[in-house]
Each structure stands twice: as C-alpha cells, then as structure tokens.
C-alpha cells in the first residue's frame, strides 16, 4: 500500500487510524485487547499534559458532561470533574442528597430528565449492579460507568493498568495478586477482566467468605493463604474492606483480618523483591494494609494511581464524546420500552 493510499484510508483519528468502536464504557468485559491498548495509549498523552502548567485543552469545548453519583464518592467524582474541565467541557455534578432521587423518582425518570438536557456524556455511579447499563439504554449520550454495585468499575481497572504499564513496561505475563473483599468488589471484577485480556495472570487472595461463588471460572487462581497467594508476584493489589463487613458478618474482627489478610512488611517478602503495591483507595490503614507498606515510596503506587485516574478519564471522555458526530436529535431512537 502506498503512503497516499494509507492516508486516504485513515479515519478521523490521531491514533494511527485506530478507532474505539463502542458508544459507552459500561465495563471491561466485552472490550478487546486493541480497545484497551487504544485507551491506554491515549491516556499516556494526557499524563504528560497534566504535568504542564497549562493543563487545559479544548477538545470538549461546547460539550456537557454530567456526573451523576447515586453513591457517595469524592475521589472518583473529583477525578472525572477535573478530567472533563481539563478537556474544556462543561461539567455538572448531580449530587444525590439534593436530587429528586430522594423524592422517590425512579432511576429511569432521572435518566430521561437529564437526557432532555442534552448532555454529551453521563458519568454514573450507582449502588446496584446493572443500574448503569439500565440507564444507558434510556439515554442517547455516551454513558461511562463510574462503578455499579459489585459489578464493574472500568476506569479504575484502566488506571491501574496504565500505572502498571508505565512502571513495568508491559502487562503481558505479569503475576498480579488481588487481595481482600473480592465478593463485593467491582474493582476486582474489572481488574480480573482487564488483566486477563491483556495477558497477565491473576490470583485472588481472600477468606472464602469474601470470595464469590464460581469466581475461579473467570480464569483466576484462588488462594486463602496470603503468603502463598502473593509468592513471586509482580503486583499486589489490595482491596478495601467495608467497615460494616468486618464485625462478624464476613470476618470476625479487624485484628483477625489484618493478621491473616492485611498486607504488611513481613507478608510482602513473599512477593518478588521488586513487587509493587496498589490500592484503589480510600485505604483502611491497619485493616487491609499497613502504613509502612502503603507509604513506601519505592514500592507503593497508590498516589500514582490517583494521578493516572485523571488521565484515563480524560482519554475516555475525549474518545467517547468525539465519537459522537451527529447533533442530538429527537429521533435518536430511544425507547421507553
């Protein structure tokens, strides 16, 4: 193929002709390796941009992003808000406390009300698995899942992947241990999908009460012994244990949990000498992770994860919003079942 021809065939994208073929980001399940590569490559550029004095571009100028959080969140919401603003878009935060949801309005009514305001992207967090997908079926803008129940949290998995890739240079072939409350964790599910797609090997380390049934059929290795579980691995990814789950319902007590499943300097010795530590935050110091480990500047990636979060969210907003080329139309074919 001549150069001229290949240029003709190139779509309106600056990623070597690669196109992201999805309208929403509802989860990692269903994405392909090229999809993820594209998102991560695009994110890299925003990492550099975010380190400049002037962090703002105008690719989302004139576009509206609504952050719709049915569940409390400071970090993820702020991260999305910054991402949208640095792209030059208008970002609105819908806070649940003042919204009509408290007055009994249904999720779908809320979705349709917001849809009528012509946003270009909705960033949604909800406490129920599947709620974001349900909402995406009722609106005609791009929908980004910022966490739904115990289902998925795709931008977290993407930012984790970006963090790992920048430090280790690759994802393929790495040994990653995900430790803690897998049963209730959307972060764990998204990471299992993403890491498996990208060729990493995933082990889960948790007491059986915090592991969902059938999880081993998602292609992971399951361990109940922390030191054996993280033996020889490159990445130790800790999960947050919710306070209400550590008082006898899932584990007997905080101190017992920490003794067997908390990451401290001793247990970490089982991992590779250059193993890195991650945590999606917010951390429970002394519950799932010891401060000495969490604050180890050589091994802990926790702050870097937060930095990558903004870049990844910029990339996904940029891609999904610029994929929409048609103006909003009344005949966009959204059905109310």
């Amino acid at each position: 193929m001549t150069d001229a021809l290949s240029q003709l065939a190139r779509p309106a994208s600056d990623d070597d002709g690669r196109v992201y073929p999805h309208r929403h980001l509802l989860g990692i399940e269903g994405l392909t390796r090229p999809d993820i590569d594209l998102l991560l490559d695009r994110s890299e550029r925003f990492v550099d941009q975010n380190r400049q004095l002037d962090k703002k571009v105008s690719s989302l100028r004139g576009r509206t992003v609504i952050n719709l959080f049915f569940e409390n969140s400071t970090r993820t919401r702020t991260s999305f808000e910054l991402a949208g603003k640095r792209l030059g878009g208008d970002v609105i935060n819908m806070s649940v406390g003042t919204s009509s949801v408290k007055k009994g309005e249904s999720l779908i009514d809320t979705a349709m009300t917001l849809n009528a305001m012509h946003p270009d992207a909705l960033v949604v967090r909800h406490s129920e698995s599947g709620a974001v997908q349900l909402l995406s079926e009722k609106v005609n803008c791009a929908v980004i899942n910022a966490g739904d129940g115990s289902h998925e949290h795709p931008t977290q998995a993407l930012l984790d992947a970006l963090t790992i890739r920048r430090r280790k240079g690759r994802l393929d072939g790495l040994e990653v241990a995900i430790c803690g409350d897998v049963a209730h964790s959307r972060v764990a599910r998204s990471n299992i999908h993403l890491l498996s797609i990208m060729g990493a090997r995933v082990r889960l380390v948790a007491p059986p009460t915090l592991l969902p049934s059938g999880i081993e059929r998602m292609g992971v290795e399951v361990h109940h012994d922390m030191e054996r579980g993280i033996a020889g691995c490159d990445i130790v990814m800790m999960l947050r244990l919710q306070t209400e789950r550590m008082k006898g319902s899932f584990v007997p007590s905080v101190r017992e949990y920490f003794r067997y499943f908390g990451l401290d300097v001793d247990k970490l010795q089982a991992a590779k000498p250059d193993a890195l530590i991650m945590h999606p935050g917010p951390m429970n110091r002394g519950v799932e992770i010891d401060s000495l480990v969490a604050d180890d500047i050589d091994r802990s990636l926790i702050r870097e994860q937060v930095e990558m979060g903004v870049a990844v969210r910029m990339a996904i907003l940029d891609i999904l919003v610029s994929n929409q080329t048609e103006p909003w139309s009344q005949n966009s074919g959204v059905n109310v079942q």
Partner: protein
Amino acid sequence: MRATLYKNARLLDPANGLDTRGALLVRDGKIAEVGSQVFVDAIQDDVEVVDCGGRCLAPGLVDMRVQVREPGDEHMETLASAQKAAAAGGVTTFATLPNTNPIIDDVSLLEFVERRALEVGLANVHPYAAATKGLRGEEMTEFGMLAESGAVAFTDGEKAIADALVMRRALSYASIFKRTVVQHPEDPALAREGSANEGETATRLGLAGIPAVAEVMMVERDLRLVELTGGRYHAAHLSTGAAVDAIRQAKTRGLPVTCDTAPPYFALNEGAVVGYRTFARLSPPLRSEADRLAIIAGIADGTIDAIASDHAPHDQDSKRVPFAQAEPGGVGLETLLAISLELVHTEAVPLIDLLHRLTVAPARILGLPYGTLAVGGDADLVVFDLNRAGKVDPERFASKSRNTPFDGRPTEGRVWRTVYRGRTVYDVTTEPPLPTRRRAFVDA
C-alpha cells in the same frame, strides 16, 4: 342450553390414559358422551357441531399456582383479568395465592375472593388461604373455618414457612381437615440478599447469589416433619435437581408428598438474566443448565407431579429498575401450555404424560374433581393445535401485566378454544384484533 358436539378431535384424557380419535358431546355444561363412537342425531337434538379439525381435545388445564393482585393491586391483575388470561391459556381451573393486600388469612377475605371470582365466571377459582396470619410465619390461621369456606390448601405463598415448629404444627393440624400445606421451599437466611442463582453468572454480573442448596435444605427439613406428623405436603415450583432427588426418595419411602415446577425452570436457565433482564428475575431464581435438565427428568419420571404457571403479574415500575431491586416473578397463564409443549416436541415427555401434569395431577393434589373427560363431569375443555407455530407476544396478553420471561420466544402449539362448563370462553378464531400498540417516546 343447546348441546355441543366436538367432533373430529384427538381426545386426550390423561386421567385414564385415553388418546384416540373421536368426539365429545356436551349437554347442560356436562360431558354427556365421549369416545370414538359418539352417536348423535344432530337434527333431532338441535346440536351445535364444532369440527375440531383433528386438533387435540383435553381437559381444561388446572393451574395450581397463580398470583392475582386483587384485592390491593388491581392495576396489575384482577380476578377478572386473570380469568381472561386463564381462558386464553386453556386454563379452566386455577388456585390463587394468598399474598394480596390485604393477605387472605381470614374467612371474610377468602369469601371476598370467591365471590369476586364467581362474578366473572370464566374459570373455577380456588383460593389458597394463608398458612400463618399475615404470612408472618408465626401463628396459624383458622384452618378449619377457612377449609369449610373453600380454602383449597394452606400456604404462605412466596414466603417459606421457615420456623420448624410452625411447619410441624401446620402439617399436623391441616391433616384433620384433609388439606395440604404448600411450601415455598427456600431457606430465607441463605436467600436473604440474593437475586440470582449463585454461581459464575451471578458473580460476573456482580449480583448476590441464592445457592441451590437453599431449596433442598428446606425440602429435606420439611420431609422430616412430614415423617413426624403424617401431614400432606406439597413443595411448590421446584428449581433444583437436588430437591427433585429429595422428593423422589421421599416418594419411594411412601411419604404423602407432591411437588410442582413451572415452565421457566425447565425452559430457561440462569443465562436468561444476563444483561440484567429483570423479567427473568424469578423466585426461586433461574438455575443452572444441569438443574434445568434434572427438572425435565423429574417431570418425565413423574417425581414432579404437576406443572403450574407460577403466574406473578407485575407492573413496569416493579421491573424497570436495577435487577436486584426488581420484584421477582413472571406472568405465565397464557404461555403455560405452549412452553410446556416444548417438552413434547423435544420428545422429553409424552403428550399424555405432560397433560397429566397439567390437569388431573394438580386437581388431585388439591382434592378437586377436575382435569378429566369423564362422563358426567363439568365440560371444562381445551382444544389446541399441537404443532401450530407462533411467538410469545405480550401485547396480545389478556393479563393486565406483560412481564413474561418468554417475550418473543418462538412457540409450537396454540390454544384454539377453551370451554368452561360447556360455554366457549376463548376462541382463537374470534379473538379481537390487536389493540393499537402503546407508544412511548422520550419526552423532549
């Protein structure tokens, strides 16, 4: 009333294994003659002749598990709309669960249901009474007086009678009134937070699971109590192979136990909930493929006595919500026959056996004289095309609710005519045209 002759039919009477070409004469709402040799002087007797065109003629279906939302939520289903749905589904007798608002736990409420049902007169309606007051699982209702007023059996509906002592007393006390206790077999603690079958599918979807053992644990406990009390016990809507095994063994031991299942449990598996399809959120949840096959085996070998629709009408607002928040259950009266016939077309169950599970078996469990073509009995009949191809279309439902897990499913077999006490209550050839489809747009 003018006599009616149904001629040129494939007569199927599962009560005595009859499967033959012939005719059936109805006079005064009763079956007057039946068989391959029915002699009628049509002119002299002024007989209306219905040519069944070789279609199957069987006793009207007996559906032992139907939820009606009257009293309380009449916009979802009334006793009138349920009877219309029954007629469209070939069902001429059904039993209603007590989980209405208010709950049917008192003679006056029971009589309200019976009276309202009679005003419609499209099917026999036999209400269950609550086994415990307010379905709270604590104190027994007045079994004797309720039975006298027509309570067909006792059940806490969609709730398990969880307390072993309450169950023990219910079984023994009900026996003096010759009534069965019908259980929703599910350990409530194991099911508490779940909304889908525990396993890989639920885990991928991030839904809390209900393990299959929640069912068999309750069945096994109840079987011990049956042994202790001698009371008659029926396990409703079985969904797991383990529970079928437990009932199979109990029957071998001669215990007075029966059970039923519903079409979703032999026609669908847990894969139907993928995509968070709330219409496939049922109670018990749709199970694994191995369980589905075990349910079919149970129907085939007779361990599962009856097939019921497990009709559970819900409005849009109860289903257009995130999966775990959706009300469990689906409508089933109008798809009961067509979906059940899949078992015949896949040669899993012979037609006469399938009809047995849909007619005389549930009638006998409830002590009702229906479900046969015996001369002298009520002329409650269904005439159906065994092979007619179609599709489940909720827009055509007579039910007020449309929450079917079978939406759009291709079907083979269709009700052609339903006859209740000699009167035609449904006739596919005179079905009114489809009402204008409701249209909805996003409000701009």
